[in-house]
Structures are given as C-alpha cells and as structure tokens.
C-alpha cells in the first residue's frame, strides 16, 4: 500500500507532469540532415524532354517521361514523373539533368554540374566527316550545345552529349550524323553477314525466273523478315540494335547477280581467258564451259565479253518495309544497263 502512495506522490509532482506534457521528439530523430536525398522534385517548366534521366535511372520502373495534352494556346509540357514506389533515391537523374537551372532536384550537392557525367547508353553519336556538308543544322538543334566546330570540322563532345537523338533528325544528309552502337561490334558484323548471305541465296534460288525476265523489265520479290529474325536475335539478343542494323544494311546493300544459261553456250571460250579469278573453266572431255559461283567476283567481265547472251547480269536493291503488318524485305532486280547488243 505504501508503495502505491509513493507512486501517487511521485507522479503528482509538478516537474514530472510538466515534463510529461511538454515531451517532444529530439531534433535528430525528426529532422532530416541537410544532405539527405529525398525523392527527386520535378520542375515541369524547365524540362526540355531530352530523356537523360530515364536513360540513366538504374531502377527500371522509376521515371517516365509524360506529355500533357495540347491546349488551344500552347503545346503540352513534357516532363518526367517519378514513381515513388520504385525510386531508389540515388539522385543520379538530378546529376545528369542538363538544363540550367536543373529540372530535377535531389539533395544539395547534385546541383553541381560535373564535367564528366556520361549518360549510360548503348549509342554514341558521331559525325561522318566525309559526308558532312557543314550546314550546322545539328548544332542548332542540340539542346545542350554538345556539337562544336573545331578546325572546320563538326565534332560531338561526348562528355556533354545527352544521347537525345535530335541531331540525327535534323541532319539533312543520310548517314552524315550517325547513332552508332558502340558495343558488340563483332556481333553486328555477323548479323550483316547473315543478312547478305541469306538474301543472296534467296535470289539465286529464283534463277529460273530471272532468266525469263525480258530486258528493261523489273522483277520484284519479297522475303519476310521473320525468316532471318530468329537467327539474328540468336547472334545479337538486343532487338532494337538488331533491327536497326538490319534496316541500315538492307538500305545500302546492292547485290550483283550473274546468271548462266548453258543452252546458249557455244563453247567459244572467250570468257575463260577474261575471268580474273579463274572461276570459269573449260572441260575438254565433256566439251563444256563451267562457272564456279564460289570463286566468282561478280565483276561482269564475262557478261561484257559473251557474244551469245549466255551470261546475264542483274543488280538487286533492297528495302525493309512493313507490308500488311508484317516486316518484309522488298527486292527489286533489274538487268544491268551496261550495253550489250
């Protein structure tokens, strides 16, 4: 009983009651330190929509670029939206943001611009000096002034570049500004080789149609992309890169085709001596002239020599296009314009 009285007496003291009423958390519990990186803040108006933050974000679902609907007076704003449920608060998006002042803010020190914030990307933008016409449209389109002119040559400063791709769209010359994939170069070469070899085999399988083709007429063929696609993906697993490589390869590709009609041959053997690689041979026993297609360079010397139209020479051009929801390689074959009477 005495202890109960003691407790009542103890807890009824003024200091204890006051202390209980005024109890507060210590500041070091409630307050966050100066440097604490909270979720990034977005200033919508400053954003230039370059996408550097989405490229650099290590968490796959954290940042998305959105575009507001256009109103009557102005275009809708483009700005990043942070998903708090996936953001890891590393502050890397704020570090790479190229605007001045920054559109993304996260913690105190990330407002400093580091001179070597290279945005992680598979692509690198380069200027082909041979093709460049020095129109400087890319310099005007660049949102961060990363393209410079040095010694009358246009040059992309890699430490400033934010890999937005605006310069590629602005460039009027096809191929002067290049978005090159810098990794797995060997795999890219293998894909190109695969495309060329498949196309060549495909055309050679249609040799009969070619031989019946009248002069000055075109032969159009189609090859669905899906036949090559699986093999290409096995070599180069990145679909984006694989598709672009194949598109570029087919765009520029030109294949020369030689056809050989044995029935017209009179064994005059004019072509045998002309062939630079010895691909055409004469067999004495059977009295036949044979062409070895593996050795052949497609130089068209035989086509120009042959007086009997045994040899015909075609040029094939290609275009990768979507037809009825399916990607196809369109092939156009045309007899060469070299004069042959």
């Amino acid at each position, binding site marked *: 009983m005495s202890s109960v009285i003691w407790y009542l007496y103890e807890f009824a003291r003024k200091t204890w009651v006051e202390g209980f009423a005024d109890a507060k958390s*210590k500041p*070091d*519990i*409630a307050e*966050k330190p100066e440097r*604490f990186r909270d979720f990034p803040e977005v200033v919508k108006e400053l954003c230039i929509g370059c996408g550097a933050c989405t490229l650099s974000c*290590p*968490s*796959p*679902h954290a940042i998305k670029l959105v575009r507001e609907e256009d109103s009557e007076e102005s275009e809708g704003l483009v700005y990043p939206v942070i*998903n*708090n*449920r*996936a*953001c*890891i*608060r590393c502050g890397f998006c704020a570090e790479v943001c190229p605007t001045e002042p920054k559109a993304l803010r996260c913690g105190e020190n990330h407002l400093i611009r580091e001179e070597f914030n290279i945005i992680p990307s598979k692509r690198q933008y380069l200027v082909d000096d041979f093709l460049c016409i020095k129109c400087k449209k890319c310099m005007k389109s660049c949102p961060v002034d990363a393209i410079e002119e040095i010694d009358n040559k246009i040059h992309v400063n890699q430490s400033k570049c934010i890999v937005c791709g605006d310069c590629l769209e602005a460039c009027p010359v096809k191929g002067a500004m290049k978005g090159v994939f810098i990794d797995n170069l060997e795999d890219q070469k293998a894909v190109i080789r695969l495309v060329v070899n498949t196309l060549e085999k495909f055309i050679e399988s249609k040799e009969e149609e070619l031989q019946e083709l009248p002069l000055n007429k075109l032969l159009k063929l189609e090859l669905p992309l899906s036949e090559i696609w699986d093999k290409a993906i096995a070599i180069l697993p990145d679909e984006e890169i694989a598709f672009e490589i194949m598109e570029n390869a087919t765009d520029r590709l030109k294949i020369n085709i030689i056809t050989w009609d044995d029935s017209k041959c009179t064994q005059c053997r004019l072509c045998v001596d002309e062939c630079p690689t010895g691909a055409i041979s004469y067999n004495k026993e059977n009295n036949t002239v044979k062409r070895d297609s593996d050795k052949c360079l497609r130089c068209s010397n035989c086509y120009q020599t042959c007086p009997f139209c045994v040899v015909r020479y075609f040029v094939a051009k290609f275009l990768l296009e979507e037809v009825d929801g399916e990607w196809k390689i369109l092939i156009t074959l045309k007899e060469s314009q070299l004069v042959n009477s």
Partner: protein
Amino acid sequence: MLNTLKDIVRKSSIHVCLINCGGCNGCDVEVVALLSPRYDLEQYGIYVHNNPREADVILITGAVTEQWIKKIKRIYAKAPEPKVVACIGNCPLSGDVFNQEGGNVHAPVSDFIPVDAEISGCPPRPSEILEAILAVAPGAIAARGREKE
C-alpha cells in the same frame, strides 16, 4: 462498450512479424534500428516478435523470390485475424532494381497477399517507417477487428 474496449486493447498492443522475402537486408536493418532507444518502437505498444502465429501486423520486405511464393501465402494464412500487411521499401511494391531482365523475382507482393499499407524508399528512414506504421496500423487493426465480428 465491449467494442470500444476491444478497440483500445487492439490499438495499444500491436505484435509485429517481420518477413524478409528476398531483399537486400537494408530495410530489415532499419526495422532493427527502430528498436533502439532512440526511436523506441515499444513505447507505442508495438512489439517485434518475428512470430507469425501471434502477429497483428505483418511487415514485408524484399522482392518475393522463387522460394517465397508459396511460403508467403502460408505465413499469411497462419497469422490470426485481425491482421494488417504493411510493405516496407520499394522491393515488395515494384521489385525495385531487381525487377528487370535477368532478375529472378516475382514482385509485387500484392499479387499473392492483400496489402494494406505501403512505405516507399530504398530503404525508408526509421522515422518514415515509424510515422507510417503509427498512422496506419492501430486504426486499421481496430477497423479490421470490427469487420470480422
């Protein structure tokens, strides 16, 4: 009268079970830091026992790995009613950095069990966890208790 009494009791004594279903440990460490004298979780009547059979609140951290898919459902079934599930950190919410090509996780956890509260951050500070738990857990448990009757 009885219900108010039950509410008071439920609000003032909350038993917590912490389940790490495949995270980096960071959130668990922050929950352990909550036990320290500085934050003192027990002054709010919250006890971390790690025993699902007496838990009122199940705290989930981690991005649900292969092994946990069945086990997380079993643990949820074993906790007595009323119960509240709270996710700590980004892993159970979205899978965080692990939820991309090559990763072996099955986030989010809400695919498997119902989730009542979310605390985002990687990891959240102890004060953020404390704030969120205190804002959600007592009320939710009392409400859940009344629903079940």
